[in-house]
């Protein structure tokens, strides 16, 4: 039986009816049309479904939509502001860190959470922070360079 939940996604409040066995990523993509969040392995291995929930980056394929009741969700669609793309997004474009683009949403959100907590991460810290996000194009080097270019430690 569907249940009504309330949640905030990209600063907008939503009241939606969800099935108990519906995942957060399916709610985002299929019910709300927020297809920037990708579905890859659906097992919590690849990180393409990364969203930020209450300030923490998580695999949205491992979260039930119903568990997101009352939570604050940020998806890739919520990063751009009136001023333009988020600095991490800019850097990914600038440094050629996007190839097929499938991992980019997750990579960018994981990088953003790292930089929010640690504005000047070392390369090891960057690699560690992105270790839950896989890039099938294996474009890791450019991705690391992009994150480095945004860090305050140039």
């Amino acid at each position: 039986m569907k249940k009504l939940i309330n949640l905030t996604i990209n600063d907008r409040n939503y009241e939606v009816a969800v099935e108990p066995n519906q995942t957060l990523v399916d709610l985002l993509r299929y019910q709300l049309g927020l297809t920037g969040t990708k579905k890859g392995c659906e097992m919590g291995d690849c990180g393409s479904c990364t969203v930020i929930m209450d300030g923490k980056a998580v695999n949205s394929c491992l979260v039930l939509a119903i568990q997101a009741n009352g939570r604050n969700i940020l998806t890739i669609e919520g990063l751009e502001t009136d001023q333009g793309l988020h600095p991490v997004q800019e850097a990914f474009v600038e440094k050629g860190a996007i190839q097929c683009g499938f991992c980019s949403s997750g990579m960018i959100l994981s990088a953003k959470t790292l930089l929010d907590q640690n504005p000047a991460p070392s390369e090891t810290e960057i690699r560690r922070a992105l270790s839950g996000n896989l890039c099938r194009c294996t474009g890791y080097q450019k991705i690391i360079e992009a994150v480095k270019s945004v860090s305050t430690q140039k």
Partner: protein
Amino acid sequence: MLLPKFDFHEPTTLKEACQILAEYGTKARLIAGGTDLMVNMKKKILSPKQVVSISRIPELKKLDASGDIIRIGACFTVAELSSSDVIQKLLSSLGEGAKNLGTPLIRNLATIGGNLGSARPAADLPPSLMAYGAQVVLNSISGERKVSLDKFFLGPGFTALKPDEILTEIQIPAPQPRSGAGYINIGIRKGQDCNIVNVASFIELNHDGIIQNARIVMGCVGPTPFRAGSAEKVLIGQKPGSELFLRAGSAASSDSTPIDDLRGSAAYKKEMAGLLTRKTLDIAFHEATHRQ
């Protein structure tokens, strides 16, 4: 990838959660971080009719290190463990396991209680917790009981938990002066891998610098994480040092009972169990000499 159909319960008190489990028994499964259950449901390994979330029970999220017993609520997340200064200071070996578990995304969801309840032989948290002498608190509608972690794991995926019980808290004796612990896990890569071997060692020295208490726990080399009894015997009553640790490592290696699988040969794992025992004892000894 579809999840099986189930009813979802989200109690806000422990009592309510126990009542739900008492009503549904084996038809119900607990969910906290979901990193284990969700995958098992998607793979259709588990199809519970009732899923009971314990994520909104405030008392399961606490960390209390003020007394002789450190109490960690079952829903304390692995990310919280890995970033906690208190854990780093008092239970560094547990913190090390937490930092090495899964990926940042998984650590933000996964809980300490789930890592114990899922009872994977290669799990990152059980060796350190067993080495520290932890026990778990199990609650049900009929009350509460405590089980030593040594007796909690019964086999891969099997524990002493009864269908109507909830693992609510992990209790660890606060480390005494001159005690220390170490944890090392080896895998193919740093993130998102399954350990090949993991070992935690704990030692406690007396005033004369003699080892009076030792616990070595090995993961991945048996159906559950287990104590290397003969390695512990080698250590107790002796003065710590590299020669002694080498002997303890050989004993631990003989205690291990690994199998050949895709992650490594039994012979390799046996060798590594010994090596990691020696190396974690070095870490434990270093911490013990600095904890006054």
